[in-house]
Every structure is written in C-alpha cells, then in structure tokens.
C-alpha cells in the first residue's frame, strides 16, 4: 500500500493537482512515526511511510493546512475520514483545499501492547498481513499475531469505511458490527462505589499534559476554557481528585455528540487512562436515548446535543435505569 500511496502522491504533485502531501514520516526505530507534510517526490521516496504503526489521525492538521495556499493531499484512514467529515460539518476546514485519498485500514499496532509482552530493546520490526516479527538487542526473534497487539480502538473497530474522499486507493470497507460499548456496559453494571473507585484510580494518574485535548480532532476551539485565565479553571495541574474529574468530564462533555470515537485520546495518553470510555459513555447514552447517531458519518444531520424533540425523556431517567443504586 505504501508504494501505491507514494506513486499516487507523486502523480498528483507532478500534475499540480496538489502542492503538498500530508502523511506520515519514518522515525528512528520503525514505530516512532511523525505526521508530516511532504512537498517533493524525493521527500516522499525518502521518508513517507504507511504501515502498522501509522496510527496518528491526520484530520486535525487539516484545520490549519486547509487554510494555507494551494491544495493539500491528505491520506485518510476510515477513522480519520469520520473526524474530517465532522470538521466539515462544523465549518472548521476548507473542503475545497483538500484532496482526499481514502485508504483502507486493517488496524494499527500499539507499540505499548507489544512492550507489555515484555519485548524491549527493539531493533527491527517486520510486518506481514496478520503478524509482526520483532528483533531485539537480546537476539530475540518474536512473532506476534497483529490481532493481539492492536490498539483497543482497532480491536473494537466501528467502521472500515472511508466516509469521505476524492478517490479511494484499494477497496473501501464496510461499517463493522463492533462490541465497542461492552466495556461501558460493564462499568454501568457495577455499583456506584465500584465505579467511583475505578475512575478515581484511573483519573488520579492524570498529569494534565493536555495530550488528549490537543490531539483530539473535535477539540478545535481557538482558546480552550482550560487555557483561559478568566475562566477560573485554567489551573495547569490537577491538584486534587476534584480537578481531575472536572477536567475529564468537561473535556469529554465538550466533544459529546461530536466525538467520532477515533480513539486518539486513549492512544496518546502517557498514563494509559482509558479516556475513550468517557467519550463512549456519551455516545452510548445518546444512541439509547435519542436514537443512533454517528458523528462524522454525514454532513447534514444535527448532533444530538444541539437538537431536541418534544417528547425527550426527563433527566431523572438517569436515576431510574440501571438499578445499581
């Protein structure tokens, strides 16, 4: 796929259809891949990469890139295409300045999951269709099935379909029947005390680095309330459990109805907090209470929180269901 992408990018550059390419750039050790803008065929040949580790969602970069001079070619995976379409819906990107090439995705490998298997000192990684083979300085040669080391978001993939593109490289996939809400349901089934203990433990690890916020393609405010000195909540550090909860509730709430469940927040969290479980709770609730809704699936429908119906349920429904008082 990488070769096909480079070839197509070079064609489009040469034809003048675009003047730059947004993609992924190789790093020092196979897996440390950085999003980058390429402007020439040489750069593409030298540095462009697309493999099991090109996990970063490029849509957010298009907010800025699409405002620049000329058309930019962006390679979007299914997840990224949902985020991009949501940004179009919110008028955050200039669609006409972006040429989108959709690319299929079979899931991305989480290096942390590999390392959690005790693999360290990685010197090389080889990838086949359904496995990765890792070589280490300890003269090991370890083969792991991809399925076992995918990101959580890929294990519970919601859609392999690129929802918006100018052209598709390879075959577009379909929306997948996923079990992504199972983890949320499991938490809902706990008692409040258990849930409280669970989240206290998770959120107490937060170091307030803002990676979850800054990577989120839905978090595109010019000035975040948590950076606004006049908001009274701009503190740079989660000084206690209250501020941890406050930050994460508001962060998730602010993208509720707009979150496409791309899973970037959990991917980047240096403290491994399962932030997607907060976002998914909102999605699950809204699906159940206001009808199925997938952010980014289209550009017309109104997101549930900026919509209403006369016969919506009352907020007290929250305390009536579940039954785990």
């Amino acid at each position, binding site marked *: 796929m990488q070769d096909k992408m480079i070839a197509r990018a070079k064609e489009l550059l040469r034809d003048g259809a675009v003047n730059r390419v947004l993609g992924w750039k190789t790093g*020092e050790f196979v897996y440390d891949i950085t999003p980058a803008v390429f402007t020439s065929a040489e750069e593409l040949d030298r540095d462009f990469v697309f493999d099991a580790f090109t996990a970063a969602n490029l849509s957010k970069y298009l907010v800025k890139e699409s405002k620049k001079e000329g058309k930019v070619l962006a390679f979007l995976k299914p997840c990224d295409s949902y985020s991009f379409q949501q940004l179009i819906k919110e008028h955050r990107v200039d669609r006409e300045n972006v040429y989108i090439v959709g690319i299929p995705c079979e899931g991305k490998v989480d290096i942390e999951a590999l390392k959690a298997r005790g693999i*360290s000192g990685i010197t090389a990684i080889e990838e086949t269709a359904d496995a990765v083979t890792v070589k280490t300085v*300890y003269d090991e040669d370890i083969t792991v099935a991809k399925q076992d080391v995918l990101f959580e978001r890929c294990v519970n993939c919601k859609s392999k379909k690129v929802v918006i593109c100018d052209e598709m490289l390879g075959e577009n996939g379909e929306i997948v029947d996923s079990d992504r809400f199972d983890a949320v349901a499991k938490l809902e089934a706990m008692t409040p005390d258990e849930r409280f203990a669970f989240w206290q433990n998770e959120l107490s690890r937060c170091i307030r*680095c*803002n990676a979850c*916020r800054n990577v989120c393609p839905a978090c595109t405010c010019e000035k975040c309330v948590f*950076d606004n000195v006049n908001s009274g909540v701009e503190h740079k550090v989660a000084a206690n459990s209250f501020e941890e909860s406050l930050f994460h509730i508001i962060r998730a709430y602010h993208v509720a109805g707009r979150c496409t469940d791309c899973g970037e927040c959990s991917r980047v969290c240096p403290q491994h907090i399962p932030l997607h479980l907060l976002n998914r709770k909102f999605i699950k609730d809204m699906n159940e209470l206001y009808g199925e809704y997938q952010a980014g699936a289209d550009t017309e429908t109104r997101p549930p929180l900026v919509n209403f119906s006369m016969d919506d349920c009352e907020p007290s429904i929250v305390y009536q269901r579940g039954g785990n008082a």
Partner: protein
Amino acid sequence: MYQLSLDNLQNFFRQIAAHEKLYIPTDKDNVAVYAEYAEGMQLTQKLNTNRSAKDFFFPQTENLYDLRMNGKNLEIEDTREACEDFVVFGVRACDVRSFAILDKVFLADPVDSYYKNRREHGTVVSLACTRPEETCFCQSFGIDAAAPEGDAACWIADGSLYIKANTEKGETLLSYVADLLTESDGSAVAAQQEKTRQLLAKLPLANTDFEGMKKTDLMAHFKSPKWAGLSEACLGCGTCTFVCPTCQCYDIREFDTGSCVKKFRCWDSCMYSDFTLMAHGNSRNSQLERFRQRFMHKLVYFPDNNDGVFGCVGCGRCLAKCPISMNIVKVEKALEVQDA
C-alpha cells in the same frame, strides 16, 4: 561492596522502611510507578518507571504559602509541612543524573528552599540497568547505566543484590540493614556490567552524539531553517515536559478557596501557548517558537550556562510518550545535518 540474597529482599525493604519512608518502583496498572513500600510489595521487573523520579524533589504541585485579606490587612502564612527523611530505592542511572541537573537550577543562588529541604532529606539508592530499551540514550551524556551514581548504588546479579554506599547518607542506609549484608568482592557485578555495556553498545541510539551541537553557535541554531519542519506536527501538549526528569520550568498560581488564597507552584510547559503570555502580548506566538525554546534550552542555553552539561539525561521517556513521536534525538539529528 556488600551482598544480600534476593530471598532477603523483603527483609531489606522492611528494615529500611522501619527507619525512614521508603519508596520503590512497583507495578501498578501495567506500568511501573514509585510507591511507598508496604509489606510484600514487589520490585518491578520493568526497566523504568512511567513517570520520572523528579516528583520526589520537585513535585508537580506544591503549596507555597497562604494569603488572607481582611479589609486592608494582609496575612502571609508559610504553610509548608515538615519534611521527613525518606529513601528512594531503584532509581536508574539516568534519573539519578537528572537530580544533578535539577540541583544546578534549584540549588544555584538564590537557593530554592522547598527543593533543598527535600533534597537534604532524601536518600537516593540507584539500581544498575540490565535490560536497556531501544529508547535509551543515556550513554550519549556520559552516563553509565551499569554503574549508576546516587547515595548508594545497587546491582541485581545471579540472585543477589549488591550494594555500595557512595555518601554518608548511603552509609547510614547500610547501617539499617547491616545484619543482612555480607562482604562481597563484586566479581558478579563486574561480569554483569560487562554484559550490560555490550548491550548498550548495540542499542539503535548508541551512536547519538550531542557534542556536535556545540560546534555551531547559539544564533545559528536558533535561526536554523530546520525548526519549521521539526515543529510542524507538534500538538503543543505538555507530555514531553511532564515526563521529562530534567524539565524544571514552573508556574506560580493561586487558588481562591473562599477563605484564603493559596499560592501554589506547579509544573509548567514552555510548549503551552500561555507560557509567555502577558497582558500586552506574547513573546512566543507560534508553536515553532515554543518548540524551539524547549530544545534550545536543553541543548544550547543550558550547556552555555552550566559548563557544557546538557539538560537531558537520555531516559527516553519523551521518545516513548510523545503523541506524534517527535523528540530530542530527531531534533539533534536534524540540526547536526545542518552543520555538516
């Protein structure tokens, strides 16, 4: 050098904990963290803790003092709590060196008494590495992962813990566990060090050389055209700063509790847009400038002010944690190319 069978490790911890608060790296939620020793707590098998050890001396947040205003009267109350003696066990060579770098900042005149107080009460027991990771590059800064510094240094080899005191504090620590220790000639340690050093030489970043940065002067690095490309993907989050053992920038803020105003200090990141924001404007408006500041500070400004010592210890945390995998090694390599 002294020796202790690993079967006795719990006794070793127990006896230290009987004298002073003891922190050891242990596994929690799939990562290693420093935790106060409790009966039966196991030492992690992981190379290093998820967060750095700088919290022990420079915590992410700490209260400085309280202010109370009553009409025109103001009351200033120093609220710091007395610091007890404590021991941090199992600090890796890179993190031990980070304390020396923080010392250069906080113990320089005028001394930061909050930091100094903790530093004086803390005993650092290092632990030699045996299984370095690909993200490690401490050797680029002259750090020997097989021979860590610290008040006392430890090695784990052939089912035994070897320990050697380097300072008076280290000697005091050994006195807590004297009955558990036997003399050793350290041959097992030497053999293990040899093995570790061979592994270190094979690491992918083994040949990263930061000294090349010094060949070019400050303004040439500052004006390098490379910064634009390096910083273009930067999200402006503070991950690299907050996992870094040597980042020391802080903010002083206040929290109004309703009954008083608490002045506290907390880690800050030069990557944040409001770091240099003032009432009349911002001196670093773009992420390029902020990104450049972080690396210029570590690789150029800090050595300029501190006899050539870089503000980095090669622990590799930022390499592993950056959401977009941009890091100090890539920056160094890019700037180096420009020199050639």
